């Protein structure tokens, strides 16, 4: 059996990509707790557009730390969960087909089967939730679901399940009424996916 260790020699840019997919997925899935906010507040951005967004995200985390923790939880609830529904519906099916549980979800499930990704026990939301798809992308890069997906497979997954709708979602998040901390998440997500889209185009 080939040395599994060799597969984990990720290029530096792939470590960074997986890091950002994971980070964004994590804060979207649940309001970050104090320990996590602390780490986010330590992010340092450079002078690029993306870097400036990172600095803004760090500042937003700092502000959230200074406020009552319930505020951030309420923000996450109002944005994504709500009574009945949140201000946003962060699902691929909703953005692509106008309703939840539509064809895009079926397509995602089929691709997950093919790629060896299973839904974790106890997860109630449909798999095409933005947080789940971001986490899947992170795993495809690092090889968490088996052999690391090569660039062509990543590009395919990205195109169908992220590039097609997530940039619009992040833009909506940036402009959402209930957004405070999450405004910065929207900005960084939008900028990050724009970088990914451009980079994938280079490999066409």
């Amino acid at each position, binding site marked *: *059996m080939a040395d599994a260790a060799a597969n984990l020699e990720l290029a530096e840019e792939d470590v960074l990509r997986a890091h950002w997919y994971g980070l964004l997925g994590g804060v979207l899935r649940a309001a970050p707790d104090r320990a996590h906010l602390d780490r986010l507040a330590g992010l340092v951005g450079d002078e690029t557009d993306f870097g400036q967004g990172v600095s803004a995200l760090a500042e937003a985390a700092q502000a959230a730390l200074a406020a009552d923790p319930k505020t951030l939880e309420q923000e996450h609830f109002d944005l994504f969960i709500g009574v009945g529904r949140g201000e946003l519906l962060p699902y691929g099916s909703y953005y692509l087909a106008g309703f939840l549980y539509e064809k895009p979800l079926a397509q995602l499930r089929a691709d997950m089967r093919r790629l060896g990704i299973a839904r974790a026990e106890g997860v109630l939301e449909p798999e095409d939730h933005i947080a789940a798809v971001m986490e899947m992308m992170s795993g495809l890069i690092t090889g968490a679901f088996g052999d690391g997906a090569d660039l062509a497979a990543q590009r395919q997954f990205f195109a169908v399940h992220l590039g097609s709708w997530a940039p619009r979602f992040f833009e909506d998040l940036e402009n959402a009424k209930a957004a405070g901390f999450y405004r910065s998440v929207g900005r960084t997500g939008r900028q990050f996916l724009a970088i990914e889209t451009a980079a994938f185009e280079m490999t066409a």
Partner: protein
Amino acid sequence: MSEKKKKAAIGRRDFFKKAGLGAGAVGAAAVGLAADETKAAEPAKSGTGGRGYQETAHVKKYYELARF
């Protein structure tokens, strides 16, 4: 790796560097890949013939190291 592939890989690496993706790596010493260990997606219990994902010591080490 073929010359063409090598060039493409270098182009990609430069692109990400210039885009500022490294922003946040410095000083983000403790930001892990996810807020906590529970994730919404996990490797499927096999049957499909793939090698599958194994939590070998090396893999665990990678995730430790990746917590930058």
